């Protein structure tokens, strides 16, 4: 996968709190179902990439999507999670699958 440069102001900053959207999954969907509706924090901005949900249908994959690395608390993901409250899970999420949480900027 080739990463393309991000335009100034195009991406959310590292540390921004976000929530995974509850879209209907695309026919090829890279967002795990168990993260839908879960709140997390951006830890990395990976660059712009062709959209895999469109590449999957032999299309050019445009518009490009910003790919984020997002960290979630395991306790937020799994009901009755019995591990440490410090445990986290990190997932790569494309921009159209997350929404910024307004007024809670880190």
């Amino acid at each position, binding site marked *: 996968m080739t990463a393309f440069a991000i335009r100034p102001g195009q991406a959310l900053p590292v540390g921004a709190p976000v929530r995974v959207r509850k879209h209907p999954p695309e026919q090829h969907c890279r967002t795990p*179902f168990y993260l839908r509706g879960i709140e997390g924090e951006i830890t990395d901005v990976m660059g712009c990439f062709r959209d895999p949900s469109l590449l999957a249908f*032999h299309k050019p994959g445009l518009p490009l999507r910003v790919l984020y690395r997002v960290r979630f608390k395991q306790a937020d993901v799994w009901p009755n999670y019995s591990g440490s409250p410090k445990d986290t899970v990190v997932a790569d999420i494309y921009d159209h699958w997350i929404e910024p949480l307004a007024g809670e900027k880190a």
Partner: protein
Amino acid sequence: MTERKVNDIGGLPAGPVCQDEHASTLHEKRVDAILKILSGPKLKAFTSDAMRRAIESNTKEDYRNLGYYDKWIRAARELIIEQQILSREEIETRVEQLRAKYKKVAA
């Protein structure tokens, strides 16, 4: 529809994961080679994204029961047809020819 896809099973109740390993079989190596040739820079018949999508289009039952490489080769067949590289009839005719040939050899 907000239903999860057949492949998207992370976090669902399941038994212990089988972690046995085995050496790759000739069949598995062949499937891998065919995939590399089809998706490689020369042919560019389809992307790995399209492969994933084809695999994810399996029924729940097939997704669960088919082996890893069996899902691969079935997906490759569907994409070859979709991309009009070969028709379903051409593939089936050739499979029949090969089946007859190997039956004779085995006999």
